[in-house]
């Protein structure tokens, strides 16, 4: 060990307290950085695990895989695991069955491994719906059907009602229109049989006229619809009747990426088993195109009839980018668009666009930078003091021949020596800290991001090495300036033990100025220069002096002259403030999102369950009074039913409506108009005449919320308005929404203002002058001469036209007697965000 290292270590040992403090500082910085990245890797692992569990471990999915492609995939060394499933064919439901179930019952085999294993690493390549009753199919003659078919009777022979009492009665419809059914089965239960006329779905290509094969991912288009949109009808080809024994029912997995067992828009799926090799051999015959040794088992299930469509799921090894995967798919001839498992690849470090990855990384990096900044300031401070304490020793060493480089290295060596202890300790602390934190909060955090198993504690060795290196860099950066300072110590000063203050240029200038002023003062008053010192204090007390008198002046001078140390202290204080502000603002910015997340997932403070009723059958302008009543009664039904459930308490009711209205400019915040004007591009095709009149009054849509009386009264009291005055039905009163968080045109969330003053709003019930034509009322606008007009929209052409507002238009005057801000209203009303920039009135339900 060199003498300088020896010297450094001895100094460290001697200044034990400072050494320990430094090690703690380094360890803490390193621990925080480690914690940040370990949390990130754990989060990533959790999300990865969730994706594996909910979507399978496949990386590439392709449908319509040719045998050549399948063979190519099996021989490709980069393909680790490969599973295939066969779409054997589809049987058409009868026309009215189609209304319930969709176009077809399609039969698929459960996926099975064609290479590698199906559930390598504990996660299946793809998910198969769980059998809820009975068991999975084990032979090609068995089938598992969706549970919604349980108890149904299907097929053209059906003239009775479905045995399931909840079913719509088929026979209520015209029997002639029902058409034939390719699905036969009576009161389908476990053990019963279904006979399916399985065929290939084909449609003639509009141009070439050649038949194109459709798989169950293609929506069913009924003959009527096909005619309407002008495409050839689809039909079944090569049909063959097959009978299956029902052995179980499954519940739907739901729709997600790569779920091959949902035929959204095409109907239902029955799952059968692929034939084993033995069964294939026994059956003897195989479709010519079904196999050349590959995929034999599945293909063998088919003796004749429709050609199966092969789907392949595969997981790769050795590949590290989406481009590699795409190349593999292309080389295997997997057609135009094999699906890449984007959700999974994202967590395997192969993100599609880097947005999510980057934003996570940026959050982590920002935190790391903040920690690094704090760490640098702490370590820098510690080293500055260390170097300052040993200035004399550095000077002595310099005088007896230590070079600048040796001195600089000794400080950097000191940093390394501290780091050798501090960094491993810090990494251990960080890892243990995250482990402990996750142990206690994993479930809560996990449920926040929909991870059922919580966030698994995961340590990535590479990330730890990265953290260690990052900490080392922080350490060396922090020690660099003190090291330079050590190497610049003047031997002469050190030897003389001078603690002379060195003045900065600014201080020197001021000193000269003071001298001149004192001189002139002395001249004026005929004083001797000897008294000038006292005068100097009197002249230049500054703020510190005025506040704290002579001690203040001395403190200020002392700080100015020992400038570097003063700067360190100031920098440390600034850093502390910065940390506080960063923490504070992170919380501040996260708060509204937390609130919104609460509301959207229905677990807001107000309610655990949020039921939403909306009338969406046809355009709102055709809402008949009858339809409206039934809509209201369904809501009442729900309320009554909900009240029956034990432990349920109705938290409140919010009804939402829209009306055309007129809001005087005096009630509006000037900001509101600016925002509205900036939001709509008047040159775009969707441009709507401004909702503001020339005078600044608002005309157009108003959103009205009706709160149940209890909730409303509580709200009124909260904003300091007497709830009693709202009871007057003759003169309806309302609260107006003022402050809310809206989205600006560039997508940023901003605090905005709307109705900021009380006043009277006029609501108009626009009556369509001719309900039967294609022109429908759309809203209020201001006419050429400033009068209000009804705006009509042609629903077919999209044209708009303003017509005179009939004199007998029903109107309603509502007095807005108070304003509320978004934070004061129940969280279930957060949805008003979506109505950005329409004025919002809030009224009690009963009035």
């Amino acid at each position: 060990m060199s003498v300088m290292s020896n010297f450094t270590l001895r100094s460290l040992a001697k200044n034990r307290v400072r050494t320990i403090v430094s090690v703690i500082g380094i360890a803490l910085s390193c621990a925080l950085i480690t914690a940040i990245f370990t949390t990130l890797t754990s989060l990533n692992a959790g999300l990865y695990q969730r994706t594996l569990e909910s979507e399978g471990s496949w990386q590439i999915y392709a449908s319509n895989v040719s045998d050549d492609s399948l063979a190519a995939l099996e021989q490709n060394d980069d393909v680790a695991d490969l599973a295939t499933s066969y779409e054997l064919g589809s049987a058409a439901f009868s026309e009215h069955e189609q209304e319930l179930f969709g176009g077809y019952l399609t039969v698929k085999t459960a996926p099975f491994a064609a290479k590698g294993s199906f559930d390598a690493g504990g996660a299946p390549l793809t998910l198969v719906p769980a059998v809820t009753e009975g068991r999975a199919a084990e032979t090609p003659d068995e089938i598992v059907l969706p549970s919604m078919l349980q108890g149904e009777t299907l097929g053209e022979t059906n003239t009775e009602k479905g045995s399931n009492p909840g079913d719509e009665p088929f026979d209520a419809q015209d029997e002639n229109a029902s058409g034939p059914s390719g699905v036969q089965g009576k009161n389908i239960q476990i053990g019963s049989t279904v006979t399916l006329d399985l065929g290939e779905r084909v449609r003639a290509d509009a141009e070439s006229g050649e038949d194109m094969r459709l798989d169950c991912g293609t929506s069913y288009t009924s003959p009527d619809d096909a005619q309407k949109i002008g495409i050839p009808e689809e039909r079944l080809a090569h049909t063959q009747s097959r009978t299956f024994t029902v052995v179980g029912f499954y519940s739907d997995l739901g729709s997600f990426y790569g779920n091959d067992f949902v035929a959204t828009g095409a109907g239902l799926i029955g799952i059968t088993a692929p034939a084993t090799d033995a069964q294939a051999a026994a059956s003897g015959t195989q479709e010519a195109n079904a196999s050349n040794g590959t995929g034999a088992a599945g293909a063998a299930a088919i003796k004749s009839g429709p050609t199966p469509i092969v789907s392949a799921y595969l997981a790769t090894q050795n590949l590290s980018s989406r481009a590699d995967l795409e190349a593999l798919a292309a080389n295997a001839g997997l057609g135009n668009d094999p699906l890449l498992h984007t959700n999974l690849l994202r967590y395997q470090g192969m993100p599609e666009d880097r947005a999510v990855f980057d934003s996570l990384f940026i959050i982590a990096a920002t935190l790391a930078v903040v920690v690094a900044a704090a760490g640098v300031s702490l370590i820098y401070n510690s080293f500055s003091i260390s170097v300052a304490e040993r200035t004399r020793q550095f000077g002595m060493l310099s005088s007896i021949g230590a070079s600048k480089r040796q001195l600089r290295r000794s400080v950097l060596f000191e940093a390394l020596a501290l780091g050798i202890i501090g960094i491993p300790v810090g990494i251990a602390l960080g890892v243990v800290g995250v482990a402990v934190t996750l142990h206690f909060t994993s479930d809560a955090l996990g449920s926040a991001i929909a991870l059922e198993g919580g966030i698994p504690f995961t340590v990535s060795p590479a990330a730890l090495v990265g953290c260690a290196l990052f900490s080392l860099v922080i350490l060396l950066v922090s020690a660099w300036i003190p090291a330079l300072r050590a190497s610049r110590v003047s031997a002469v000063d050190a030897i003389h033990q001078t603690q002379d203050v060195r003045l900065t240029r600014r201080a020197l200038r001021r000193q000269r100025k003071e001298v001149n002023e004192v001189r002139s003062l002395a001249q004026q008053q005929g004083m001797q220069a000897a008294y000038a010192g006292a005068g100097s204090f009197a002249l230049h007390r500054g703020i510190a002096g005025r506040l704290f008198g002579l001690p203040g002046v001395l403190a200020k001078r002392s700080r100015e002259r020992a400038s570097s140390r003063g700067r360190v202290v100031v920098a440390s204080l600034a850093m502390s403030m910065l940390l506080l502000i960063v923490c504070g603002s992170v919380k501040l910015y996260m708060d509204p999102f937390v609130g919104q997340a609460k509301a959207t997932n229905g677990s807001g403070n107000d309610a655990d369950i949020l039921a939403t009723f909306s009338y969406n059958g046809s355009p709102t302008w055709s809402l008949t009074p009858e339809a409206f009543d039934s809509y209201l009664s369904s809501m009442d039904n729900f309320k009554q039913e909900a009240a029956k459930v034990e432990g349920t308490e109705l938290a409140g009711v919010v009804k939402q409506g829209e009306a055309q209205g007129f809001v005087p400019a005096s009630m509006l915040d000037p900001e509101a108009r600016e925002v509205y004007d900036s939001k709509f591009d008047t040159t775009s095709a969707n441009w709507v005449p401004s909702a503001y009149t020339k005078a600044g009054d608002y005309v157009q849509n108003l959103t009205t919320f009706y709160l149940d009386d209890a909730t409303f009264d509580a709200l009124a009291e909260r904003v300091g308005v007497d709830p009693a005055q709202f009871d007057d039905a003759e003169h309806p009163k309302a609260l107006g929404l003022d402050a809310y968080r809206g989205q600006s045109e560039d997508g940023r969330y901003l605090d905005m203002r709307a109705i900021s003053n009380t006043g009277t709003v006029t609501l108009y019930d626009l009556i369509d002058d001719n309900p039967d034509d294609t022109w429908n009322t759309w809203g209020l606008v201001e006419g050429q001469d400033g009068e209000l007009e009804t705006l009509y929209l042609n629903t077919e052409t999209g044209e708009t036209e303003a017509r005179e507002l009939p004199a007998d238009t029903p109107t309603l005057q509502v007095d807005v007697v108070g304003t509320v801000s978004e934070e004061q209203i129940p969280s279930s009303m957060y949805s008003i965000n979506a109505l950005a920039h329409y004025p919002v009135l809030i009224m009690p339900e009963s009035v």
Partner: protein
Amino acid sequence: MDILTVSHLSKIYGTGEAATCALNDVTLSIAEGEFVAIVGSSGSGKSTLLHLMGGVDRPTSGTVRLKGEDVYARSDEQLAVFRRREVGLVYQFYNLIPVLNVVENMTLPVALDGRQVNGERLQWLIKSLGLEGCEAHLPNQLSGGQQQRVAIGRALMNAPAVVLADEPTGNLDSRNSRDIMALLRSSNKQLGQTLVVITHDEDIALTADRIVAIEDGRIVRDERIRK
């Protein structure tokens, strides 16, 4: 033969109004094996002269040549090497490194140079300096006289071309002062060590071969009192 030549050496500290001229156009030659005492009042510039001769500071103008080579033509790194090999410095306050023991302090210039310590020379020095039994002591376990001996040992360890001592006895009682001066003088007499000692003690100055008096940064007297 002159081992150390100082010509037209000036040193100004500070700039502008605050500038102080510590050394003003000093020219001086010191022969090999010579024992020179530099005397002068406080602030006369004698320490500045010593530092400039030892390569510790850089002059404002003028040159210092040791063994014919221009000391300040060297880079900072080369100057550091020069200090550890060619010069032995002894200070009033010993300037030992508190965390290193006696042997480590003495061998510091050799160690800084990355060379192997000459064990024989070390033993001989320890013995001549009367430091036997204190080898592993830290400086704060030694008396002032012992500390100064360690400092002298450190200065002599590399057999430098010149030993420069700045008030080596300024912090010692008279008995220790006599011992220290005796040690220095014997190194001069027996080893032919060139020796420059700053002092304001007349008695010490009178034991030198030559006395150089400095006042206000200038040599006011240069007197050879002994051949």
